[in-house]
């Protein structure tokens, strides 16, 4: 999985994932989120628009990121559009705490 990190503002970081967010690549995302939060960027947007496949390890990295950002006084939002990602979020009920925004622009609204 390719991971591209960019700062949208001083406190908002965008992490764009491309490929498969799975057991192999999940630690990379988890570490990137933790790094951004510890650098003071407590609001995180993870763009899953380029992710064709996510597994429970990938979900675990997102939840860990959500916890880390909230503990630092921020939050984590996701943008997702692929069928597999949306299905897995729904089946695991994680869409209740990680509401998928259709794109990054919507996810950054009011941030």
């Amino acid at each position, binding site marked *: 999985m390719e991971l591209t990190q960019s700062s949208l503002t001083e406190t908002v970081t965008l992490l764009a994932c491309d490929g498969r967010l799975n057991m192999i690549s999940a630690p990379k995302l988890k570490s990137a989120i933790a790094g951004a939060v510890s650098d003071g960027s407590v609001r995180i947007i993870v763009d899953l628009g380029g992710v064709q496949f996510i597994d429970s*390890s990938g979900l675990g990295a997102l939840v860990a990121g959500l916890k880390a950002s909230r503990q630092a006084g921020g939050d984590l939002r996701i943008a997702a559009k692929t069928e597999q990602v949306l299905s897995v979020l729904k089946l695991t009920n994680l869409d209740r705490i990680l509401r998928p925004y259709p794109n990054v622009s919507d996810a950054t609204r009011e941030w």
Partner: protein
Amino acid sequence: MNGEVRDLAGDASAEGLEEFRLLFDQLRGLPGAVRADELMLFETALMEIANNTVEHGRPRGRVHWHLVLRVDSDRIDATLSDDGEEIELPPDAPMPDPAELATSGRGLPLARALLDDLSLTRRDDRNIWRLTRRYSEE
């Protein structure tokens, strides 16, 4: 698609998971009536079981597996066996409550939610997972 069978043996490892992905990519690329939505959901379930084997298989790094996958017009079946030490299927655990923010424990509940049948048996010194998904109505 009737009776399309794939057979794959290798190491229960990150590389092995990649071989499974390539196998599903091949099936997706086949001409004919493979249900892309069903294949995607079945792949999701199978990968959770395979992840489990990579993560918990012992002796670590020395487990070998064998996958037989059969795609039919109304269902997909797979048998994933490995030569690792005996593992036990944990009791049916519910999907973790999202509000508790658990970072693990979703793999098997997710696989169960996606499959009509999931079983684990031990025979001839092998762990044998059997997975079946019958297609939902289009």
